């Protein structure tokens, strides 16, 4: 082979791996992408229908723009529905985070009690939420249930739990707490166990109080995990359906009609899809954008926490 000219020609040509090798990542992802399309299609349908007047009695949808959304906002129950949806989510998330944190801190001690209890910690969450709700419904039931006599022992009478509009929301939040606090506790416990020991030892030598250590060391270092707990719990409780449906089906009356419940009743009970869809689309949008922000915030917090080690 002659040098000079030929090698110059070859040098300007870039020799790449064969096309099958370059396409490999896309080929591997392909089935998942197909699945993605299969899910996005009905979603797209839903978005489209939300801008039409679609009833099952009138299956030819006509485009009415934002008509459904405006009707939803004008609906007298909309404000209450918004209140219930967010009150449930915020109440449940805050309490689960706090209670989970306390339980995690208590479990972090090296004791026999912790070891035994830790194994069973997850049980409430492993049971189907519907079934968990039924258990509590059973306990709250006036004739068969155990809560009535138990409360009577300490002198509390007349609690009607979910039958009473005033106590219905706290009742279902209580059930949510029962089911999902283990989630927060387990994650926070894992986080506590992974923390470096030196800063805490130094703080103890310096005579820091418990609260000081918690506020300035523990919580900041646990921030990434706290964000994850908030992310999962807040998003999940915004769309909670099982617990409320099994407990009262949305009642008493309209007390517990969250967005998802509204979507269900409008679409499947009253067959009015145009009334039900806007609730889901709005809820979806809120969840999508809030979760996106939380995930971004989490990445930043993770990077910062890595600097502590």
């Amino acid at each position, binding site marked *: 082979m002659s040098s000079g000219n030929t090698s110059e020609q070859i040098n300007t040509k870039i020799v790449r791996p064969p096309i099958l090798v370059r396409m490999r990542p896309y080929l591997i992802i392909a*089935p*998942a992408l197909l699945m993605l399309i299969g899910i996005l299609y009905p979603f797209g349908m839903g978005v489209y229908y939300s801008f039409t007047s679609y009833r099952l009695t009138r299956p030819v949808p006509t485009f009415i723009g934002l008509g459904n959304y405006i009707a939803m906002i004008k609906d007298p129950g909309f404000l209450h529905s918004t209140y219930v949806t967010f009150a449930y989510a915020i109440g449940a998330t805050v309490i689960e985070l706090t209670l989970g944190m306390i339980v995690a801190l208590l479990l972090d001690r090296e004791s026999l009690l912790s070891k035994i209890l830790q194994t069973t910690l997850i049980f409430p969450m492993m049971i*189907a939420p519907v*079934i968990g709700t039924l258990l509590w419904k*059973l306990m709250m039931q006036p004739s068969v249930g155990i809560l009535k006599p138990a409360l009577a022992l300490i002198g509390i009478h007349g609690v009607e739990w979910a039958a009473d509009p005033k106590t219905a929301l706290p009742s279902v939040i209580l059930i949510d707490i029962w089911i999902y606090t283990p989630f927060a506790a387990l994650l926070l416990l*894992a*986080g506590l166990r992974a923390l470096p020991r030196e800063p805490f030892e130094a703080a103890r030598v310096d005579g820091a109080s*418990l609260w000081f250590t918690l506020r300035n060391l523990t919580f900041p270092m646990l921030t990434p995990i706290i964000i*994850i707990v908030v992310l999962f719990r807040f998003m999940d409780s915004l769309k909670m359906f099982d617990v409320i449906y099994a407990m009262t089906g949305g009642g008493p009356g309209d007390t517990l009609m969250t967005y998802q419940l509204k979507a269900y009743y409008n679409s499947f009970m009253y067959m009015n899809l145009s009334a039900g869809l806007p609730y889901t689309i709005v809820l979806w949008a809120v969840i999508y954008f809030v979760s996106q922000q939380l995930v971004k915030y989490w990445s930043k917090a993770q990077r910062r926490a890595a600097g502590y080690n």
Partner: protein
Amino acid sequence: MQTIRRRFRSILGDLFLLSYFLFALFPILWMFLISFKKTEELYTTTFFFHPTTENYRIITIGESYVQGTGTFRPDFPKYFLNSIIQSSAAVLVSLIVGVPAAYAFARFKFKGKEDLAFTFLSFRFAPEFTVLIPLAILYRKIGLYNTYYGIIWVFQLITLPLLIWVMRGYFEDISPEIEQAAMTDGYSWWQVFWKIMLPIVKPGLAASALLAFVFAWNNFIFPLILGGAEVQTVTVSALSFLSSEQAYYNRMAAACVIASIPEIVLALSIQRYLIRGLSFGAVKG
């Protein structure tokens, strides 16, 4: 003075912990108790009664009994089988589709990777009815309503994001040099995936699959809306024991116990990998 305060705190802590666990576990124990109660003793006794396995018998052999205005014949064994078939199949499909995708997310760089990964994650957080309402219409049109395939397909919304994200974490934990060594040793990429990568992640893979199984099993909404009597799962059927007339709480309790056993067993066996699975890989247990 310090030690007294510390010991006081320690005891207080133990008390609180015990109360919490009483709170957490009592309902489960109580459900267990009730499932062994005779109907006659339901309203009259609390902790002391004559236990019976009658409720379990009635449920499992599907005895018909009068409830309200008609006879009611729960086909509980069928529901149990439905749950098993649909949850297992859903997990299997997610494994086949999701594990290679998880690997691709872990190892390759390509445009839109993080956006695509987040889209899969968003399925997990999306409100079910956003997809369910159109799906209910679609399924009826294409004949997937009340079929196994229909349920297995929609369960992907639950099982696929979990498997992709958790397995992505496990793959990312393996040093890329191990694959490079295997390829240099003479194996094609596909062979390396099967002989090296999968065996290494096997424990995490099994645990994630089991966790996905539990979540599919526990799901209530999808079979409720998209399934009928044929494919009804054990989770949905638990609710059917209550009616406005006479509620057979003891049988419902028995149904709940049976419906919950697989999950408790599975939960105990995947303790080590639980945290990774629950947090979708965000927290490494």
